[in-house]
């Protein structure tokens, strides 16, 4: 359960931090909180992991990242943790997840590579496969062709004042990299 004052703060900053000399003081004015309280609360929320990141959200296409590949592997359960840990250490890997296998989709390890072009991504993938010893496992590469929908964070307050207000971060998965 998120404290009411934390929630109020999260609501006010969800669309962005003020770009001015004392941003947390400005947020404090909006929330009727002293700057020190804003700083304390945000520091704690970040430590707790409720705020995953604070910083810029880039449009990766604008930076020239036009190739986006999701690579999936079917790896043995006893190796998955080690392999996931290894994969995620590569700087070009933008996301890495373990997901359950499906009847017609027997893959349990997922990673994403965002690159400047397809050939760069494929050579990075080759490097990853060699370094992590992934060559023996079933694998598929799914490049994205089009992005149909992409929306930013929204805050939804429950209609009834007595019901908990809910924060839904609608920036999951490819959270920090948008605009494929």
């Amino acid at each position: 359960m998120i404290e009411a004052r934390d929630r109020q703060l999260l609501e006010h900053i969800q669309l962005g931090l003020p770009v001015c000399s004392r941003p947390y003081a400005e947020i404090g004015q909006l929330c009727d909180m002293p700057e020190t309280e804003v700083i304390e609360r945000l520091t704690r929320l970040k430590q707790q992991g409720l705020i995953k990141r604070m910083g810029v959200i880039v449009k990766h296409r604008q930076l020239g990242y036009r190739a986006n590949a999701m690579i999936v592997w079917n790896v043995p359960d006893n190796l998955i943790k080690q392999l996931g840990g290894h994969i995620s250490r590569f700087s070009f890997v933008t996301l890495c997840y373990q997901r359950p296998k499906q009847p017609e989709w027997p893959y349990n390890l997922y990673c994403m590579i965002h690159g400047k072009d397809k050939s760069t991504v494929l050579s990075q993938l080759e490097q990853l496969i060699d370094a992590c010893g992934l060559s023996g496992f079933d694998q598929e590469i799914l490049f994205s062709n089009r992005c149909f929908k992409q929306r930013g964070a929204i805050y939804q307050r429950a209609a009834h004042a007595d019901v908990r207000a809910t924060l839904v971060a609608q920036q999951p998965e490819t959270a920090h990299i948008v605009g494929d």
Partner: protein
Amino acid sequence: MDEIDKQIINALQDGFPICDAPYRQVAAQLRLTEQELIDRLKALLDNGTLTRFGPLYNAEQMGGALTLAAVKAPKQRFDEITDIINAFPEVAHNYARSHELNMWFVIATETPEQIQQTINAIEQQTGLTVYNMPKNKEYFVNLKLEA
């Protein structure tokens, strides 16, 4: 976007300080004045290079739920399926991918129970099987796209 803009983007992907004068602190690292950093950051937001500057929340800790899902949309029904799926407010992202499972989307809801309800509704409206691939574990990635 010049070299200084690139440095700003790279530095601010590493995290923004939570202290009384955070821009001054970042500016000092970049050997800029606070005002120069503020002006450039505003310009990058105004011209759309940066989508947003602020927090990224952990949806699960907020009480919400997320999953990755996919369908095999037949070619002749592709546009129709796209429209149906995108019309769901619970669908946050939707990407076409090169595979038989050709449409991949993220469902984000306020409560875990609503994930399955949304999947059921998508199956009912599209007549397709929705593959549900919730995460079991997320490996920490120090995400940074060099500008």
